[in-house]
């Protein structure tokens, strides 16, 4: 009897304590899918793409269930507060997948923006961060026909293209990490909307380099491949070269790995990046029955040269022209040449001294028999 009485008292206590844990039902929340942040005239302009049940009465709702809402404020907290007040719902960041930052906001308010999202307990560290030359809100408010391009679709586009090395996942985790490290600089993927027949698609447009929270350079799409080769972030890139006899040859990478080691020569750090690339031939313009015996080695060298060119291009723009180490070279120096690293009071002084030597070793593993009319 005593145990039952105690259990009842405890149950009543627990129920009464329930009010101390604030709760919002699902229909009282804005389920944010994407956030666009612009900065104009000293004010943050935040646009949210959120989910609304298709049966809802919101006029902004389309068939896919996405709607848009925006708000302004002197800082991000005020901007989000204005949205919450207008919608009379709680903002839920837990399912936000995308953060698009306009160039102006990126250049002037980068630290503030990433600090805000880094400290928000709901925001996931793996959200993708993108930037754009146009207004950030344009990216998440574009439509395919009647329907807003959903954040998941944009994210899937970035992920799928990342496999071929033509984009990379610039996540909040990566961005904050590179921003906090005094020896590293940040590269953020740039996208833009392009018209595709009657639709609008979001495509990767290049990369924006930031140093100390300010934009220092813009890179093109080719630069992205170079960064990915060095970081060993490529799964199945297609490299096309031209041979005098065979014409165009496309090879697809099956396995790629990059090894980095550091030596010190004449007081300067030399970073050696050796890429091993295994690939298979996808397509040859003109077939050669003796390809393996006669042409394969040459093609391998040409492919290696092409990859090396992409790497050099990325290193040239980022490191040599703008002193931006987006390749983690300083981390390798710190790890492998610690004494040299510690000899600098300010480790960021190492970046301008870095020299990179790249080498690529390509091996063609498969050549499919040619399909010819007999």
């Amino acid at each position, binding site marked *: 009897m005593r145990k039952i009485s105690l259990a009842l008292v405890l149950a009543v206590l627990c129920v009464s304590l329930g009010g101390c844990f604030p709760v919002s039902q699902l229909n009282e929340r804005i389920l944010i899918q994407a956030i666009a942040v612009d900065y104009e005239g000293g004010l943050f302009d935040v646009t949210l793409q959120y989910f609304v049940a298709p049966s809802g009465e919101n006029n902004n709702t389309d068939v896919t269930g996405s709607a848009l809402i925006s708000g302004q404020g002197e800082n991000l907290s005020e901007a989000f507060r204005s949205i919450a007040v207008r919608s009379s719902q709680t903002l839920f960041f837990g399912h936000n997948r995308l953060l698009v930052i306009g160039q102006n906001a990126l250049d002037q308010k980068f630290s503030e923006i990433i600090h805000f999202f*880094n400290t928000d307990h709901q925001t996931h560290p793996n959200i993708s961060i993108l930037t754009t030359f146009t207004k950030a809100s344009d990216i998440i408010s574009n439509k395919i026909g009647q329907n807003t391009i959903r954040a998941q679709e944009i994210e899937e586009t970035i992920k799928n293209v990342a496999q071929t090395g033509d984009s990379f996942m610039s996540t909040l985790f990566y961005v904050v990490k590179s921003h906090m490290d005094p020896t590293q600089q940040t590269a953020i993927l740039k996208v833009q909307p392009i018209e595709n027949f009657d639709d609008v698609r979001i495509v990767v447009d290049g990369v924006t380099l930031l140093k100390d929270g300010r934009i220092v350079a813009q890179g093109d799409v080719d630069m992205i491949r170079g960064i990915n080769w060095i970081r060993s972030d490529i799964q199945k890139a297609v490299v096309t070269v031209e041979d005098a006899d065979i014409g165009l040859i496309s090879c697809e990478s099956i396995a790629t790995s990059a090894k980095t080691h550091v030596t010190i020569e004449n007081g300067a750090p030399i970073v050696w990046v050796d890429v091993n690339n295994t690939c298979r031939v996808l397509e040859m313009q003109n077939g050669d029955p003796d390809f393996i015996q006669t042409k394969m080695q040459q093609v391998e060298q040409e492919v290696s040269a092409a990859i090396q060119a992409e790497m050099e291009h990325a290193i040239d723009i980022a490191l040599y022209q703008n002193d931006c180490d987006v390749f983690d070279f300083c*981390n*390798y120096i710190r*790890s492998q040449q610690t004494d040299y690293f510690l000899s600098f009071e300010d480790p960021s002084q190492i970046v301008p001294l870095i020299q990179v030597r790249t080498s690529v070793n390509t091996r063609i593993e498969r050549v499919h028999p040619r399909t010819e009319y007999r």
Partner: protein
Amino acid sequence: MLGGNVRVRQLVVLLLVSRIFTTLTYIPQAGKSTSGLVTLLVNGAGIVAAILLALPAFVVFHKNKGQNVLDLSYTTFGRVGGSAVAGLYTLYFLACTAIAAAKFEYFVTTVLFPQSASAAVLFTVILTGAVIASFGLEGISRSTLVVMAVFVLSLAITVFSVFPIIHTYNYLPMAMGSLDKMVYGLLESLSQTAELAFFMLAASSIKGSFAKGYCAFVTITFAGFMLFYLLVEGSMGIFALSQPFPFYTLASIGEFFSFERQEAIHVSIWIFMGTLNIAIYVWAACVSASYWAGKLKKPVLIAAVGIVAFGLAWLLAGNLKLFADVLFAMRTLIPLAAVVFLVPLLLLVFSKRRAKKPCGK
């Protein structure tokens, strides 16, 4: 209250589970402890330091099997001295309960319920800890196998999911460590291991060798710290320092096949461990208090300990400066050294003196 036979393996696993929770909810910004590969050295030193701290206890419990530090205190120092020692242990474990509850509240209100009332979290967790403590040490120690199995599974998933992003260059080299940070780190990790004091009290309930159990616990604990460090820093590098709870962030960045954002599941498992962490301190405080307040019945004792611990924890949770001061005081190792080293040493010295006294005098 003491009762029961607990196998030494069970006790080691119980205390391991309790200590792991403290590690998982470690806040880098709270102290100035070291980071980098030098952490491995610090943890190695921690094993040695913890064993050295308990050397008097090894000798005392080897000579007096089946008795704990309080039984021996009453025998050696008499009623007044024994009560004083029991009071010291009661205060120590009350403080540990309050600190553990306050840290737990900080963790829950940061990652799960930022808008919730801290009193509600403190009340629920201390109440749960008190209820669990009332089931006795045997019941608690049996439950740890299940909790440990679930935790190992969750840890395996976390490790598997973050393995691809571990890079060796994320580890700060040993040369970047400094001696004062190493010492600070050593003091901090030792001071947070109040489970060492728990051994002193549970010595009478252990079926097995006290010394072996203690050494096994210390070795596995500090080896575990090394593993956690290697995981956290290897995958997140400097990013870990920007996070209030790096291991929580680690659990959230990993993707297990198509499952992502599963950190809430991991946190639920950690809450199991957190409640055990608080429960064992409540149990220890109750056991210590029962020596000088033996007339009180068990439920009354548990309720009293729970209420006092709640009050202290509420005080700490509501006053960050006071909390920091208390943590600093614990970090000096004086409280831990008093209960783990000093009291057994005094027992050893005084029991030898009693043995030397000729009969009849």
